[in-house]
Each structure stands twice: as structure tokens, then as C-alpha cells.
């Protein structure tokens, strides 16, 4: 099986370089980057398929470091199959799935079952993230060694952060034996308790209990400090505040081994989106204020924030079509991430290559997984993006089971038109979408 992608703009995010060339895929691997002459020769050798990528970006497959696939346990919200379809539809060739399933992924058998299930049904690669502590209860460390051997790629008590500082310290220390990555959901739960949105003028207007920025800033500072103390690898998930950006920027300047991600909603929306008690604008951390959005953008531009992850959190209407304070936190994000991130390119905050660093090469580097490059010989995980294609978001047509998106109805420019995983075309944009 030979696939030739011609006339596209090849983007090498790791090298921060773009070139007009053709990409040849053979036997599931990247077989060559061809100039015009080589392309003509390749065409004469009759590849199985030729893809005309005129006007399109040909990039390493996108990697989402922060997804909730909900399986096992909450299959009515999402499954490994439906979530991986949503990923493929959004241009992702790999996702890291968070461990807050039922049961939680805190032992090797759950990790193995996710990997086996993914092998059978998933369209894209699925990398399980395991719990830091048993049941994410914040007490006993999970068996990092056993979990890593079973295929876990990192550890996180996402959604239920490690409260005790000494436990977090020990987790970071213990991870050193494996050079494992600890992902911090940074939240001081005593400060956020009861809160359902950002504490600010909108929460005051709506009479909703707020979550102050300090709840995040304090926890980020604690974990960065523990990272410095232990010299371990720490990744801060879903950064939403300007304070967190500043703390991470200063830590990086000191040489602390911390990395960070934000999510598209934190640079696309503010707490004003909650107006009207829209539960699709309810997530944790919450949508913040204009100055935070600005700080996040600057943090992305100057490299303080390494990655853009979706924090894809599908819920059913059981959790969302209820009173605002009763509603679950979280929104789906896999199928809107490319369009929202391309907006940053249009605002000249990121170049195409810069955007793809956040979506592909940096996540690969942080998670220490293959991908993020167009190196010859590696498995051909490729995403083809039309940066000018305009498409209206229609949540009802999401591949994800979750329709909980505050971007429903938005017109986004920039669509992943084809997703290739290990040389197989796993997603091709519906032609019916094209004329908009």
C-alpha cells in the first residue's frame, strides 16, 4: 500500500520549518519526502492512491494529551470507539485518556483492558494515563512500575487533585525511578469548594458561587515548587489563569522541568459565556476573564505553555440539561480544537508550525511517544488541514457521544480534512460540509 500526498505544504513543527514537497507513505510508514522530480517518478511507479493537497497543510498527526474517553464505566457518555472517532474527525491520530473512569485506571488490569479495547475498536492510538493514587483518593501511590509496563504513559489524578502536599511530593519522587511524567490537575479544593464558575463580575451578577483564580495559582505554585524540590518531570494540565502562566514562566526560566498545556476554550471564551446559565460553558477550571485569555495567548506565543490539549469531557444531557449548579463540569473539544487553534494563527499569535508544535510535536515530546515529526521511517501518522475551509460547528453532528459544546453554531476557519494513522486513512472530511 503506497500513498502519495502531493502539492501540499509540509510542516515540520519540531524543526519549525515548512516546505513544499510531496510525502510518500509506504507500508504504513513515512517512506520519503519528495521534490517535484521525485514526485513525478513516484507517480510513474503507480502508487495505490494519490492525494492532491493543494492549498493544504500536511502535518504530523495531532496528539491530544488530555481526553476523557469515559470507558470503562460511563459508556453512555463516550466509549473508546466513539471517542476515537471524534478524535479522528478532529484530526487527532493519538489521544491520552484520563484515568477517572469507573473503575478508575489505578491498576494494571484496567490499563491493559483499555489498551486491548482500543486495539480492537479505536480508530486512532490510545495512550492510557493512570492514577497517581489508588482511586484518586490522594492516599496511596499506585504501582507506577507495573502500570508503565502495562502501557500507561503518565500519571494524573485528574478531576480529583492530590490534596496532601506530602503525597504529591512522594509521587514526584517515586516517578523518578522511571523518569515518569506526573500530570497535575492544579486546584486548591478548599478554595474552589462549592464554586461553579469563575469568581468575578459575572458570578456576582448571576448569583453563582465562584472559583477564584487563587484556587489554581496556589496549586500550580505548590506543584512547581515540589517539582523543583524533587527534580522530577511535571506537567500542568489545563492552565486557565494569568497567575499560573506567570508562575510557570518563572519556573521555566529557573530551569524547573515543568511543562504546561491549556485548552482551546481558555483562549477562545471568557466567563461571559456563562450568561444565561449555559451549562455548556461550565467546566473546571472555569472560563476566566479577558486578562487571563490574554495571558494564555502570550504564554502560548512565548512558549510558557507547551501544548494545546482539549480536556475533551463528554457528558450526556442527564448531566447537562439540569440546573447550572447541579450540572457536571466539562465540555467536548476534540472536534473543535483545530478550528479554534487555527484562529490563533490568523491572529498571528502562532505560526502554522507553532500551532502544530502545540498540537503535535510538543505533546509527543512531553509524553515521550512516537510522532510529532515527518521523519522518514516512522509510522505514518499524518493530519491534513485546510486552513481556509470555513465550517459551522454543529454539535448534533459530532462523532462524539457528547454534544456539550459552547462552540455549537460558531463558524470556524480551519478544518482537519484527512486523518491518517499508521498509513491508513481513518478520517476524510464529508464533502457535504465543504461548501459553506
Amino acid at each position: 500500500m503506497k500513498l502519495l500526498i502531493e502539492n501540499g505544504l509540509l510542516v515540520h513543527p519540531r524543526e519549525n520549518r515548512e516546505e513544499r514537497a510531496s510525502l510518500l507513505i509506504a507500508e504504513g510508514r513515512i517512506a520519503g519526502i519528495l521534490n517535484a522530480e521525485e514526485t513525478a517518478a513516484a507517480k510513474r511507479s503507480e502508487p495505490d492512491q494519490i492525494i492532491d493537497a493543494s492549498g493544504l497543510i500536511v502535518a504530523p498527526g495531532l496528539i491530544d494529551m488530555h481526553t476523557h474517553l469515559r470507558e470503562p464505566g460511563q459508556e453512555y457518555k463516550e466509549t473508546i470507539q466513539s471517542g476515537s472517532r471524534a478524535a479522528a474527525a478532529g484530526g487527532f491520530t493519538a489521544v491520552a485518556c484520563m484515568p477517572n473512569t469507573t473503575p478508575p485506571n489505578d491498576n494494571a488490569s484496567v490499563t491493559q483492558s483499555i489498551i486491548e479495547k482500543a486495539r480492537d475498536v479505536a480508530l486512532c492510538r490510545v495512550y492510557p494515563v493512570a492514577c497517581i493514587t489508588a482511586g484518586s483518593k490522594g492516599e496511596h501511590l499506585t504501582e507506577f512500575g507495573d502500570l508503565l509496563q502495562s502501557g500507561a504513559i503518565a500519571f494524573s489524578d485528574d478531576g480529583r487533585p492530590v490534596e496532601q502536599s506530602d503525597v504529591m511530593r512522594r509521587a514526584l519522587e517515586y516517578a523518578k525511578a522511571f523518569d515518569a511524567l506526573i500530570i497535575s490537575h492544579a486546584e486548591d479544593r478548599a478554595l474552589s469548594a462549592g464554586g461553579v464558575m469563575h469568581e468575578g463580575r459575572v458570578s456576582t451578577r448571576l448569583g453563582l458561587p465562584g472559583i477564584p483564580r487563587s484556587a489554581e495559582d496556589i496549586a500550580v505554585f505548590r506543584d512547581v515548587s515540589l517539582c523543583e524540590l524533587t527534580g522530577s518531570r511535571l506537567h500542568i494540565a489545563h492552565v486557565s489563569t494569568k497567575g499560573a502562566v506567570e508562575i510557570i514562566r518563572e519556573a521555566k526560566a529557573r530551569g524547573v522541568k515543568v511543562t504546561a498545556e491549556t485548552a482551546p476554550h481558555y483562549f477562545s471564551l471568557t466567563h461571559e459565556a456563562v450568561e444565561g446559565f449555559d451549562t455548556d460553558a461550565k467546566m473546571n477550571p472555569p472560563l476566566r476573564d479577558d486578562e487571563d485569555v490574554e495571558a494564555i495567548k502570550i504564554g502560548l506565543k512565548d512558549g510558557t505553555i507547551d501544548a494545546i490539549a482539549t480536556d475533551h469531557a463528554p457528558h450526556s444531557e442527564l448531566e447537562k440539561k439540569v440546573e447550572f449548579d447541579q450540572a457536571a463540569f466539562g465540555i467536548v473539544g476534540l472536534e473543535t480544537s483545530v478550528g479554534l487553534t487555527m484562529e490563533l494563527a490568523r491572529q498571528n499569535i502562532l505560526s502554522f508550525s507553532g500551532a502544530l508544535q502545540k498540537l503535535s510535536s510538543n505533546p509527543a515530546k512531553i509524553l515521550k511517544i512516537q510522532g510529532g515529526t515527518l521523519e522518514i521511517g516512522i509510522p505514518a501518522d499524518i493530519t491534513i488541514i485546510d486552513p481556509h475551509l470555513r465550517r459551522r460547528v454543529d454539535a448534533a453532528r459530532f462523532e462524539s457521544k457528547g454534544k456539550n459544546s459552547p462552540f455549537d453554531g460558531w463558524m470556524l476557519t480551519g478544518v482537519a480534512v484527512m486523518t491518517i494513522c499508521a498509513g491508513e486513512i481513518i478520517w476524510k472530511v464529508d464533502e457535504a460540509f465543504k461548501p459553506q
Partner: protein
Amino acid sequence: MQRLSMASFKHKHLLGIRDLNAEEITMILDTAESLKEISSRDIKKVPTLRGKGVINFFYEASTRTRTSFEIAAKRLSADTFSLSASSSSMVKGETLIDTARNLEAMNPDIIVLRHSSAGAPHLLARKISPGVINAGDGQHEHPTQALLDMLTVRLHKNRLDGLKIAIIGDIAHSRVARSNILGFTKMGSQVTVAGPPTLMPAYAESLGVTVTYNMDEAIKDADIIMMLRVQLERQKKALFPSIREYAALYGLSPERMKKAKEDAIVMHPGPINRGVELVPEVADGKQSVILDQVSNGVAVRMAVLYLLLGGDKSEIAD
């Protein structure tokens, strides 16, 4: 009696003071003043809303507001039905929307909702066809309370503009404060709020009020002193150190009253914690209009039901 203006009251629901403009507030208060007289008749009933159905759906406990709505509806001859969370299927795990759809299937014209979640009436209004009246949603709004407060002030001061209003106490958790701030500022009065910083919402100034932590400053030259009920359980959450200190700093005493205008009136949405936010002699004193508020509550709720249901004015007169 004053002629009722049937000029367009365009709203189907009353979800908050935020959705009303000064003209509409005035229309409701004018209507309430006209209807107030019915409650002093021998036969306290007019056939205006005959055949209309009003469901009082009180998810959160309330005696005063619920009774007031009930009386208001009955004086206008509407049929009323009451439902509380404990008597409804919500205790059996039914969602708010499902319960409401079931109520809707019985064809009421208005659902009056009291709920502990901010925005619950807005959710209901989006999902079902009858009109929805917000009878208090979480810490968000309590529009009929603000309307009855404004009516009370108007009856005592003959105007609603150019007044100095002091609202004292737990501003952060008070839907009464939020709705009154919106109402009185829309009508052209100045609102100052005072309370301990721990009971002040974030960015309180963004509500268009003056914020102070000093009660004396707030009531200086005030025309209206509105005291809020302090929830005693807030002390447990370390929001203030003791009832004793709260009463000393933010309780209304006769000495403090002297700082306000001589003809200032004292209001309280009830129920009162006697000896905490109000010293008994102030609560029962001649400047207190607390019981007027209760009477005016019935009139205002009659007006709201009347305007939302487009009652026939010819049937109000004797």
C-alpha cells in the same frame, strides 16, 4: 380607581428585575397600587383571572412568599395548586425539567418557581410553554420581593428616584439584595451596600453600587435602610467570627438610626433574627415598614399575575 394601563406588558415570564426597564417596573407598581384596594374590601375577590391556573412550585422552603402568591392568585379568582420538593417526584430523582413537563401537561397558565439553584426559572422558561415567575432562585434574583420593596418605598416617599438606599448585611448570598440593587438603580436611586467583606460579592462595585464595610457610612443620610437576614450557618463557614460581633458591627440600633434621615424607613425581607440584624425596638418602631412590605407583597404579586396573564380590567372595578 386609577385606570389600569393595559399598554403592552410584553413579557411572558418574570425571571428577574434585570429583564425589566423603568417603565415596566412603573407599570407593575401602578397596577399593584390599583389592585391593593381589593384586599381591603369585605369580599376580597375579583373574577379577573377566573379559569386561569397557577401552580406554586416551591422547591425550597418558604412560608411568606408562597402564601403571598397563593393569596394573590385567589383574590384574582385563579385556581392555585401547590407543590413542594418533598411532595413532588423530585425526591424520587425526577429532574426539574421532567417534573415541570408533567406540570405543563396539566395546562397551567403560570408556574411560580422557588428553587435553590440560580437560573432554575430560566431553564424552566426555555423548556415549557406556561409563563414562569421567579419566586427566588438561589442567590440570584427575587424579583417580586424587589417589586414589593419598591412599592413600599413609593407609597412612603412618593417617588423612587433620587433616594439614598442603604442595604446592610450579607450581600454576597442575597437574591433580595441583587434584585433590589437592579430595581432601585434602574429607577434612579443611589444604592450603598454595607456588610463584612466576607459577605460582599467579588467585584460588588460592578453591580453599580457604592461599597463600604462601615455601616454608619452607608446609613448616613439614607432615606431607606434595608436590613438583610444573616444566615446564622454562615458563621460556621468562618465568614464572620460571632453573632455578637456581627450584631455590634452590622445590627441596626436606635443610636445608629439617628445617622439616617429623620424620616428614613426601615425595611427587612423577613424572617427577622431579632437582636441580630435588628434590635426589637427598631423592628417594631414607628419607622419600620416591615409589615407594610408583607401587605404590599400580595398587591405586587396580584399585579404580576394580572399583567402576565392579561386579565380583563373591567372586572376589577366594583
